């Protein structure tokens, strides 16, 4: 059965802020990204790299930690990798992904670093954000370029700018319409490659209502989670991703009849007169994993 790590929230912490690096993981985000890219000014790139390196090697974290590097086409990208891979982040997040070749290139560098430092091969993963039409066109190629790939994400602001519009609040049905197609294509590519899809950040901290609408929309579109920039957004996002008690009950029943059928070696499985197939089982597992993470459901024996 598929066991996927939950990534409802992927929170950025600026790499040049020691207090943030120390505390970012305590707020309950499923995944935290230490950023040495856009949130760090050019003059502080080196010090941020240093701080992130020491945070990763010295501190213990309660959640998955990734590092957003500068793109390898910038003057800092390769140095970021060289400096930060020895600190063994859980994953590298590459911004502005445009082709499978970039991913293969980085994959090779990671493979080399893993061997040099005695890390388990394949243990450092990759997450790529897509921020341009070219990247979107190549989304599947990117998503399937390396077995390290765990997710692709959409960088909303950059993408909107690249198609000569701006990110809007939109309405509660379609959100910002400018991203509607791109968001869906990201989900399609991710699903085809068998990895996760993560939505863009919503940057107005005061506007909780639009944030909730946006999360509801992307959940419906198929996204696994959303990037965020402030701990205050974590609970709001998790709440939307938390299944209802009805959904939890149904998922439990699906899994019960499925396990029962497996035990009896029975081919056709039905529940309430409906046939249960593999996608429904996977969905049920995801519902329970979300429910577990939200603390509204506890698996027996745990």
């Amino acid at each position: 059965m598929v066991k996927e790590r939950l990534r409802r929230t992927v929170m950025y912490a600026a790499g040049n802020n020691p207090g943030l690096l120390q505390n970012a993981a305590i707020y309950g985000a499923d995944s935290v990204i230490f950023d040495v890219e856009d949130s760090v000014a050019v003059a502080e790139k080196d010090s941020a790299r240093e701080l992130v390196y020491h945070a990763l090697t010295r501190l213990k974290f309660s959640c998955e930690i990734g590092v957003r590097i500068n793109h390898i086409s910038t003057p800092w990208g390769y140095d970021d990798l060289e400096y930060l891979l020895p600190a063994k982040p859980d994953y590298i997040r590459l911004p502005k992904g445009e082709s499978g070749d970039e991913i293969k290139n980085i994959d090779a560098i990671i493979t080399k670093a893993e061997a040099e430092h005695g890390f388990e091969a394949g243990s450092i993963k990759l997450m790529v954000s897509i921020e341009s039409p070219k990247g979107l066109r190549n989304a599947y190629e990117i998503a399937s370029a390396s077995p390290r790939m765990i997710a692709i994400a959409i960088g909303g602001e950059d993408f909107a700018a690249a198609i000569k519009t701006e990110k809007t609040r939109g309405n509660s049905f379609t959100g910002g319409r400018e991203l509607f197609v791109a968001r869906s294509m990201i989900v399609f590519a991710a699903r085809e490659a068998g990895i996760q899809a993560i939505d863009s950040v919503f940057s107005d901290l005061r506007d909780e209502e639009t944030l909730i609408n946006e999360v509801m929309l992307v959940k419906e579109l198929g996204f696994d989670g959303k990037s965020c920039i402030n701990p205050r957004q974590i609970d709001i996002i998790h709440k939307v991703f938390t299944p209802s008690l009805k959904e939890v009950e149904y998922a439990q029943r699906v899994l019960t009849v499925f396990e029962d059928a497996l035990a009896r070696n029975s081919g056709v499985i039905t529940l309430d007169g409906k046939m249960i197939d593999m996608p429904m089982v996977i969905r049920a597992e995801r519902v329970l994993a979300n429910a577990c993470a939200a603390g509204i459901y506890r698996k027996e024996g745990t």
Partner: protein
Amino acid sequence: MINAAGREIPADIQGYKQVKGYAGAFATRPPAGARKAGAKLKAVYPGENKLLNSIEEAIEAAGLKDGMTISFHHHFRNGDYVMNAVIAAIARKGIKGLTLAPSSFLDTNDELIPFFQQGVLIATETSGLRNKLGHFLTTNHMARPTILRSHGGRVRAMESGELKIDVAFIGAPVCDTYGNINGVHGSAACGSMGYAMVDSRMADTVVAITDNLVEHPLCPVSIPQYQVDYIVKVDCIGDPKGISTGALRVTSNPRDLHLAKLAAKVIEHAGYFKEGFGMQLGAGAATVAAGKYLREVMLREQVAANFAIGGIVGSFCDLLDEGLIKTLFDVQSFDARTIQSLRDNPRHQEYDCTFYANPWNKGPMVNKLDYVVLGATEVDIHFNVNVMTDSNGIMMGALGGHLDASAGAKCTIICAPLLRGRLPMVTDAVQTVSTPGETVDIIVTDRGVAVNPKRQDLQENLKHSGLPLMAIEELRDMAYELGGKPAPLKMSDEIVAIVEYRDGTVLDVIRRPIV
């Protein structure tokens, strides 16, 4: 001697009454047959006038002399003009050797330092010290050590005769021509007069100082005319901006919000969250924010509180209006919203400090608390709390009602970050014990929640709450691992302050740090 809080207390402290060590939260009780102390018997007859022209005249009329004890209330907080102005007037009259016993000090009282240097003031008894004055009184030699008492402990000391106020100066937001006072009208409105009500009752002489003199009789009355000797009209008694902070906004600091959320979850699951419960939330950022999360839980679970007490903030008034709290008891109002609510809502009840917290009366409100959520500067593995001294051993906080509510509540919850900057806030031993660990039940930090081992019932209730429960020692280890273990401070032998427990025993002493 080692007292029941594990602190080494000298048998004699120069300039202090006979030392009696802290023996347990309820171990020291009123001496059998003891009677309450009170103000001198005095009479004002028909036709006599209480109005005087200046503070100087009032000082003369009150018969203030060298060596006496004077008091003030701190309801005006950092907007207070009264204490500094009166002491400056006293100094001009050449009076010396006074003991200053206000309900608390605030940053604005840094202006008093010269009067300590000149000998106008020689000692203080209060509940809190901050800023430069706190630093000054920690690092300089005074005739007698500062006595720090909780709000409840201060009333107890007055009523048992240990703290005798010769003259109380009462800043009055509105006062009529015969001395009736309330706190809800006027430009310096401060809401509840809870601390001043006690001083007015217990002081031999009471001087009301107002910038809002009205015709007799005033209504409603918080401090009645029969307790007031003299009235002085001045131009301005306080700055409204410093008195109340508009509507106190809930913090946006993610770490405080995180602590608040955890505290609300503790309240929900610890076992006393039932229809009709009683609570107090401290006035810190995290504790105020706990109210926001608690509101969500109360709405979800359809549970309302019968009462809430303490210093009151606007968010509590909103809960009162929503019916989620049935009655507020207000000893001190923190913002404009609260002052308005106290004035307009009959279920928002003003009450004095003995009613709130005095351990030696026939039942203060703190005795009825199910929950109290309070802040801390640091805590230790024995659940002792320090809210009084900083990491250099300097006095910079206030006992307030901390140890009163902690002793009274069925469940005392302390919120503190595990680290401040790089300093561990869960340690082997706090610098100063200001609330004893035996009265503390749960410590909430941003990285874990620890339950006092003597409360197995709470531990059991919280087991399935999803809260990150840990042993207090684990929290300490985590704090030391992240921040390193601080070296102990170098202290001299000189005792600069005494932390009295609410029953008048010595909980801890503060020594002068060697800097």
